[in-house]
């Protein structure tokens, strides 16, 4: 779960995931689409792969990636459970901080 959240914390990785959501794409095409350096692309794909969010398939000399949507299923219930209470807490903390600042 932590890996999944970490993997999704980067805007670049979310964009990659969106790109391979319904179509399988070769690594090179992904790198070109985002004008990203190769090491950055390769590292992002590794994080997504390690988190189980994308599946890698080798075909001849190229590597193809596609989103594994089933990996997001446990996240859905987790988010539903924690989102509301975390959000409330965040709001209270922010309000307390505002009050503290305005007193100075």
């Amino acid at each position, binding site marked *: 779960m932590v890996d999944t959240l970490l993997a999704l914390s980067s805007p670049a990785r979310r964009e990659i995931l969106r790109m391979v959501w319904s179509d399988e794409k070769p*690594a*090179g095409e992904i*790198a*070109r689409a985002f004008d*990203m*350096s*190769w*090491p*950055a692309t*390769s*590292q992002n794909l590794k994080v997504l792969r390690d988190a189980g969010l994308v599946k890698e398939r*080798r075909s001849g*000399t*190229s*590597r193809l990636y596609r989103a594994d949507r089933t990996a997001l299923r446990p996240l859905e219930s987790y988010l539903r459970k924690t989102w509301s209470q975390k959000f409330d807490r965040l709001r209270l903390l922010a309000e307390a901080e505002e009050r503290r600042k305005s007193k100075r």
Partner: protein
Amino acid sequence: MFEYLTDPSKFAQWMGVGAEIDPRPGGAYRINVDDEHFAAGRYIEIDAPSRIVMTWGWEGSGEVGPGSTTVEITLEPDGQGTLLRLRHTGFTGEQQRIDHRDGWVRYTGQLKELFA
């Protein structure tokens, strides 16, 4: 084309955003690929204009650390162009090998575009 392998501004233009290079056997180089990834190693052989051998690796990488692998590039005239051969050896893992092959396919493609 050989200059793209030894001249700092040309190397950077080809592969990244900046480069520090000491182009002589034993000399170190450091290429800033995207401000987050830095390739580093040393030149082993420099035979202008046809052959270059350098160690290769990435700062901060445990699997392919600076200087941990070897890149050999040969250039030979081929009709009106140049045939580039690149051999990267010394990987400890299959994933790393494939990853770098994909990387070189991308960067040699970019080199070709610079001459197009």
